[in-house]
């Protein structure tokens, strides 16, 4: 059974749900503490959503320097699968494991919705989805606008590193002002993925997105089973 670490920072909110998602996907969640520079031998790591350090300074800016991040950054560069969800995505960008930054939503309001997404890249965390598959996963953020300079955005597109994209109705806008409707990205190796939506909130029927979304409400589960399957393979 794959052991997947879930880091708790001061102000993390969704560490419990992320651990539960790992368990429902068939893995063994291992709680990791921000203050310990120790990954406890896990096979993969999830940086959960929330408001680490109250979002002081910039979202993820202080968490990025937590003791646990030292071994984590090294391990990620060495190929350890790492998933950053929402605040975790912000931490990965601040740690320069992924390019770009997340800024305040362009419409200035917090957005909480069942969000339709398109999975575009096969990574350690998305390999159980078909290319171009559309899924519905909750999104809840105030600072979820993904930005990078044009050259970086072109590189992400050119190298197929846009992992997930917001599905935007004709003439509509994406939910937070993200450049090129980007909801999630991956590094070149495909082991580090960051995304704004919350797959850990769509892992059990009846407790995820509304059935009126046209899905079973469990579209997020394969994010976690993808990495577990890779660990077995």
């Amino acid at each position, binding site marked *: 059974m794959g052991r997947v670490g879930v880091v708790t920072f001061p102000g993390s909110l969704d560490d419990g749900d992320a651990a539960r998602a790992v368990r429902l996907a068939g893995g063994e969640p291992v709680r990791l503490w921000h203050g310990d520079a120790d990954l406890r031998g896990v096979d993969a790591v999830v940086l959960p959503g929330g408001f680490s350090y109250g979002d002081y*300074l*910039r979202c993820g*800016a202080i968490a990025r*320097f937590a003791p646990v991040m030292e071994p984590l950054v090294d391990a990620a560069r060495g190929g350890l699968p790492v998933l950053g969800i929402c605040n975790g995505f912000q931490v990965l*960008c*601040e740690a320069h494991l992924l*390019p*770009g*930054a997340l*800024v*305040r*939503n*362009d*419409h*200035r309001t917090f957005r909480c919705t069942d969000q339709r997404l398109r999975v575009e890249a096969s990574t350690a965390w998305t390999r159980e989805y078909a290319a171009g598959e559309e899924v519905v996963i909750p999104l809840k953020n105030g600072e979820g*606008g993904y*930005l*990078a*300079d044009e050259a970086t955005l072109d590189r992400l597109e050119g190298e197929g590193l846009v992992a997930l994209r917001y599905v935007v109705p004709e003439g509509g806008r994406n939910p937070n*002002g993200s450049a090129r409707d980007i909801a999630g990205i991956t590094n070149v190796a495909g082991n580090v993925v960051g995304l704004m939506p919350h797959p850990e909130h769509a892992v059990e029927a009846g407790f995820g997105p509304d059935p009126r979304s046209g899905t079973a409400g469990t579209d997020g589960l394969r994010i976690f089973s993808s990495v577990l399957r890779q660990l077995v393979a």
Partner: protein
Amino acid sequence: MGRVVVEVMPKPEILDPQGKAVAGALPRLGFGRFTGVRQGKRFELEIDGEVTAEVLEEAARAAEVLLSNPVIEDVVRVAPVEADAATTTLAGGTV
């Protein structure tokens, strides 16, 4: 005691929703002449002793590593401040 001020602003090409919100509120309060607002951050770093060139250089490095994110922000000022000046209002009173 010495003090270094570091000022960080969102890059000009980055949308600044906070500044925009403030710009929207100003005319409602009768401040009609301001056509735009951009909101940045000011840090005051305290040290024991004087602000030397070495101190300023270290402050500039801290500004790049932690106080700003170069993807979205520019460090626009790293400068020594007089201890008194930092707490003196424009009118000359102290706060």
